């Protein structure tokens, strides 16, 4: 029983860290890409990506996207009880799909701006998961 509590505590701790990290990462992606293609198109791409990846990772559907940006407000609740690895994989798939859409539209133009900043944060997320 004690080990279960420990695991939960540990899991929640990692999950919160991950959420914070991905929240910052998505905000950063939003800021960089909206400056290139505008908020309307970006909102559309985020919505498409969430719909696509949300099939496999339903917690992502609670991400709120509007022309003002992306918010993880509802995601915390949706992630409750999920293993951090699942949360990490969900966000990773979402970001990969967004990159796929960006490169479909503008080949390397968006990725060139984005990749150096995003890559480090994805590595950081992987580090958090591996520590667990």
């Amino acid at each position: 029983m004690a080990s279960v509590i420990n695991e939960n505590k540990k899991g929640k701790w990692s999950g919160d860290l991950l959420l914070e990290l991905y929240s910052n990462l998505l905000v950063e992606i939003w800021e960089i890409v909206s400056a290139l293609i505008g908020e309307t198109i970006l909102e559309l791409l985020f919505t498409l990506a969430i719909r696509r990846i949300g099939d496999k990772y339903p917690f992502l559907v609670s991400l709120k996207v509007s022309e003002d940006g992306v918010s993880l407000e509802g995601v915390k609740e949706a992630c409750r009880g999920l293993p951090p690895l699942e949360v990490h994989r969900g966000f990773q798939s979402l970001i990969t799909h967004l990159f796929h859409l960006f490169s479909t539209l503008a080949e390397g133009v968006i990725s060139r701006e984005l990749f150096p900043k995003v890559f480090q944060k994805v590595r950081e997320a992987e580090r958090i998961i591996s520590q667990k």
Partner: protein
Amino acid sequence: MSVEIQEIVESAGVNLPNLFDFSSFGLLWKEGLLLYLYQEESCPPSLTQEVVKNMVRVFSALGEEQIDVDRVTVQVEKRKLRPKQMTMDPKATLKSHLTLPLAVEGDIMGCISLNSDQSNAFDAQDLQFFSVIGYQMAATLKHFQRFSSIQNIAIYDTLTDLYNRRYFEERLALEAQKSFYGGTSLSLVMVDIDHFKKVNDTFGHTEGDKVLCRISSLLKASVRKKDTVARYGGEEFFLILPEAGLEESFIIAERIRHLVENTSFDVGQAEINLTVSSGISNFPVHRASSKEELVKMADLALYDAKRGGRNRVCIYNVNQKK
């Protein structure tokens, strides 16, 4: 709508070379799957094909629905976009592109694309400019689309898709003016479905509406391309037949009468047969001095057809009281 899109593409094609170095600019419009390309004159057909395929691929990815390239209607406009000495290699291939969705209020209406035979032809600044242009185009196209749908509401009968009475009046005024001043022939045929009230009373208005739609299709299928078919009201229709003499308009009216008579109409669980009566008036034969008089003459001829036992075509009789 296609005319407006074409105008936008041409206007963009004229202005874009001042901002970007590209081989081809394209606009793919979802409605009707139309793709307009504005290209450098020396652009080889193989590159055109690549651009088309790429735009369809990107649009499919955005719409999350696979679109068959063969379903897309491509229209190409070739212009000199580069200096004379810089013609494109006939073996040139698509090396880079910027493609953006045309999005308004969450709807993807199509996409626009800048394409080049050079690698890394576009940078972040190009993308910024292009996205601003894309916004403006999307807003303009949306405006055109709304205008076009309002225009449709104003001239079409919502049930039958035929022109409505208002359009009929306008069209007749135009055709009458052409005939009266140009001395060309103009015939008017007024068609009425015999005993239509019985259909409504027996089978209900929904079934009656289906009959109206079916007969409307028969009317549309029976006339020439330059003719106008309009629903005048209830079960009454008008055909405006420019440059048609009495003989020709009689043939058309008879064709309709025969077609309706030999058609079985499904109403509810039953199959019924119906007939139509028609009245014809003509300028200059009947010496009408106004479009109103021409309408009145067709109406009187129709009255004659009804009085004569229905399921017949009558030509206005100059001895009839107007």
